């Protein structure tokens, strides 16, 4: 008897077009970011993902202020950030993490300054925290185009990227250009950062491009499998997060990332080979063997 209203309540979000759209756009973005996260995790580039996400803020602010597509603004400032990092590294002896931190916080501060001087043109919260529930049609188109192109390129080039990142001399011997592939990867990463900005916002993009890959890394040793698992986790948590945010009236980005973190923690404890429980079991077995 109670089941009817309960099901109605659970299905209610799908009755709203903006909710249905938010759910599948989030899933798409989550899947693409998860794909990239597998490479970031293994290369130790987590800070780069965070840096790019913060660096695109001034470009987005200017784009909304002057009325050109936000993706172009974001992309331009992402490239400025990458060049700035390379430039400062060449000029100084500073550690890489300090240089990255310096460049991205500077760009982020410039973005906040632009917004604060023209407070009416952009809502700072929607850049920093994302606002997929109120995304405009134009922005949806941009997100879909970015995600689809990135996914297609990754689908074609994922093995080349793997080879170029983890066995450079072999990659060269089979005629690949590691430098070019690296540039391609960072272009894709900034593009996906720009897409993720819409769903989870600049601060939480780091979770989208790190957590699913890390979770998958705990579950499998095979790279192809890792990509599949990461994409599944990324898409499922993003869709579920967007769905649940209907009942919470917002905080879509927060919910998506909380879900991703919970899945990671579950893998950390229960993963069959690399989880804490498995490690404890094998330690006990080893102790028995010794005895």
């Amino acid at each position, binding site marked *: 008897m109670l089941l009817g209203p309960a099901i109605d309540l659970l299905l209610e979000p799908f009755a709203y077009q903006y909710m249905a759209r938010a759910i599948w756009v989030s899933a798409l973005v989550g899947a693409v970011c998860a794909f990239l996260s597998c490479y970031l995790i293994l290369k*130790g580039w987590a800070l780069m993902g965070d840096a790019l996400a913060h660096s695109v803020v001034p470009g987005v602010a200017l784009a909304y202020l002057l009325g050109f597509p936000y993706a172009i603004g974001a992309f331009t400032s992402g490239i400025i950030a990458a060049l700035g990092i390379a430039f400062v590294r060449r000029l100084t002896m500073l550690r890489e993490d*300090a240089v990255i*931190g310096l460049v991205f916080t500077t760009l982020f*501060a410039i973005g906040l*300054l632009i917004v604060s001087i023209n407070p009416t043109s952009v809502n700072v919260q929607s850049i920093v925290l994302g606002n997929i529930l109120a995304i405009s049609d134009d922005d949806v188109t941009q997100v879909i185009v970015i995600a689809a192109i990135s996914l297609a390129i990754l689908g074609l080039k994922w093995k080349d990227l793997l080879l170029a990142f983890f066995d450079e001399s072999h990659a060269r011997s089979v005629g690949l250009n590691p430098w070019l592939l690296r540039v391609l990867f960072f272009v894709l990463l900034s593009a996906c950062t720009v897409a993720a900005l819409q769903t989870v916002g600049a601060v939480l993009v780091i979770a989208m491009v790190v957590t699913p890959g*890390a979770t998958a890394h705990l579950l499998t040793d095979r790279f192809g499998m890792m990509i599949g698992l990461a994409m599944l986790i990324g898409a499922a948590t993003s869709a579920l997060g967007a769905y649940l945010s209907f009942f919470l009236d917002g905080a879509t980005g*927060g919910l998506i990332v909380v879900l991703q973190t919970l899945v*990671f923690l579950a893998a950390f404890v229960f993963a069959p080979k690399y989880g804490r429980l498995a490690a404890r079991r094998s330690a006990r077995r080893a102790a028995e063997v010794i005895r």
Partner: protein
Amino acid sequence: MTWSAPAWLWSWFIDPLAHSFMQRGLVVAVLVGAVCALLSCYLVLKGWALMGDAVSHAVLPGIVIAHVIQIPLAIGAFAAGLGCAIATGYIKSNSRIKEDAVMGIVFSGLFALGLVLFVKVETDQHLNHILFGNMLGVQWPDVLEAALIAVPAIVIVIAKRRDLLLYCFDPTHARAIGLPVGTLHFGLLTLLALTIVASLKAVGIILVIAMLIAPGAIGYLLTKRFDAMLAIAAAAAIGSSVVGTILSFHIDGATGPTIVVVQSALFVLAVMIKRGGRSANA
């Protein structure tokens, strides 16, 4: 003619201070700038830029929970920040995930939890003020609270600077000569968390990371001696805080970001001085 330039400069600096909110903002900016600058020297040397980023974001759920259970926000923030650092260490040493990724996972998870709790809980706090600070809205009790946290942190950092430096540069050597390495590690984390808590009201949890990198980087560029590095970092940060606060009044922009942009400009200047000096010597 020679005195007219200082005269307008003088009034450019002094006129905004006729407002009491500007006085409070300036005091808190200088305080926060000084303590962040000292810490930044260690973070830059140790390669802990991401750690500063992580701890600062992780304090958000602590603030919200402290608000719910009615304890001082600073205590909740401090506990959450330290908890993030400890959880990162635990997961890193018990899994095959690299440290930078673990840090990213933990702090983004905590920040996200904070956002969800914030939406769920009715608070009188403004999310924007927690995230970006509200330098010109601070009241004297806020200034006092920041001072109560920042001044002891400054004293400890200066008193223990030799031990902390050795720990940052060469933990193995520090252990060999009998320094309590574990205590120093947690001491530095605690100081970092305290600094971030002290900076909360003024610059917020997102921008504090900028103030925790730039001054140390400037000091690192301009000198090879650590004491001089601390002094240069502090001077650069305090100068930027003063100029940034006043400048933000004139351009009608947000104060925290203005200070950060001034610091970055000083960094660019330091790079140019360094390069200029080198080519002159060569």
